[in-house]
């Protein structure tokens, strides 16, 4: 028991120290959509508000569990969002803004 607790404290301290504040999480969230935006099937450009909200939905619901995939075809963006809606219990509104975020 005691070695476990000591090990836990040491490891947790190391991890916390390594987590320097930076906005790179947002960079991660942007990575996948930005890579696929060049050949996006969507023609409409979302407003800045929608972009920010979509980014928020991505960070709070997708990046909470897994890293952003390094690019994917825009043809499956709708399928991914629908899958995430079920798995992450997204609201209908969150589903819409997330799809628009993917289509940037």
């Amino acid at each position, binding site marked *: 028991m005691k070695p*476990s607790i000591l*090990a836990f404290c040491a490891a947790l301290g190391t*991890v916390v120290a390594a*987590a320097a504040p930076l906005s790179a999480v947002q960079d991660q969230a942007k990575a996948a959509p930005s890579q696929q935006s060049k050949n996006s099937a969507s023609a409409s450009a979302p407003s800045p508000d929608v972009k920010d909200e979509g980014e928020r939905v991505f960070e709070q619901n997708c990046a909470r*569990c*897994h890293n952003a995939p390094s690019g994917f075809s825009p043809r*499956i963006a*709708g*399928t991914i969002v629908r899958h995430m809606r*079920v798995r992450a219990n997204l609201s209908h509104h969150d589903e819409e803004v997330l799809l628009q975020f993917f289509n940037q």
Partner: protein
Amino acid sequence: MLDIVWLMEPLRFIPPSASRLVGWLLLMSAGLSAGICAKAQDTPLLSGTAGFVTNTTGGKTSYIPVFAPLAAVPLGEHVLVESRAAIIESFAPDANGYSHSHFVALTYLQGDYIATSHLTVVAGSFLLPFNVYNERLTPTWIGNFQDEPLMEPLGLMSAGIGLGGQLRGSVVSHPKVSFDYAVWYSARSANSQFKADRSFGGRGSFYFPEQRLEVGASYGRRMQGTHENFAGAHLWWQSKDAGFRFRSEVARGQHAYGYWIEADSRPFAFGNLDSFAGRIEPVFRMQQTFRIDNLASDGLPSANTQRADFGLDYNLPHNTRILTSYSRQFSSTGNVNIWETGIVYRFLFPAWKGHQK
């Protein structure tokens, strides 16, 4: 127990057969064909994991290639059919050298009907929504460790899979707080010789976006044989401006209880996520299980057990991860060292070319 062994659980009483894989492929092919008329962005997708992992427990090393495909097929505006399977080879040491075994398992196959903005109806074989590890972190490409937490079988009715129906959705999604739910009923039978293992349960979670804090509670009840109640809770937190994540779960049954806490971080101090240092991901997990009695075989260790897992993952480009970890397990039945390494690749692409707008 390896996560991939966890994937095999649904086939615990069923002889593995290649015919099950063929059946899965035929079924998903039919579903993919049905989705040909999908909209431009609703093309069916194929995803999943291909990987190779090793596990050294007590000085004995097993080598395990694993392939876990996932298919998702949207049908119309409201339906999604999704399924995941697992194909696993295992080379484990025995008295004569190494023995070889293989497993083919259908992890889940479910149909989702999005009825309203607050309700989705799920039918088929699904991952039980008790706590959150089972639904969120069991894909090999997501989990930070190859091993599942020791207490994970609690509340998951042995297999972690339900066969029946589920209602789930978001009750409220607000910038300050969200609440979602999932309730299920299952009458799953893993063997034609046994009666269906009936169970029901549910989960509710609050999420506070500004604090990036999620807290939730789960309940499950087994209604076959000796009735048993399970209760669980989870707490997740993610720092807003740093890549630090904290995850934890606790669960209690009538014969055992336990908890696990996990922390991981992406060190941004030396560059962004695509830098050499930014791809490094130190992870740590602490877990304990406590045995109340040994009257039930619930999958937990037979004696009180403590375990600390230290991992160092590396996120390569193109959705590839290297997973390494060392674990020290303390128990009255014997202490043991566990070393694990692995490389996993996550693929994600359309099932076919599809339509273009």
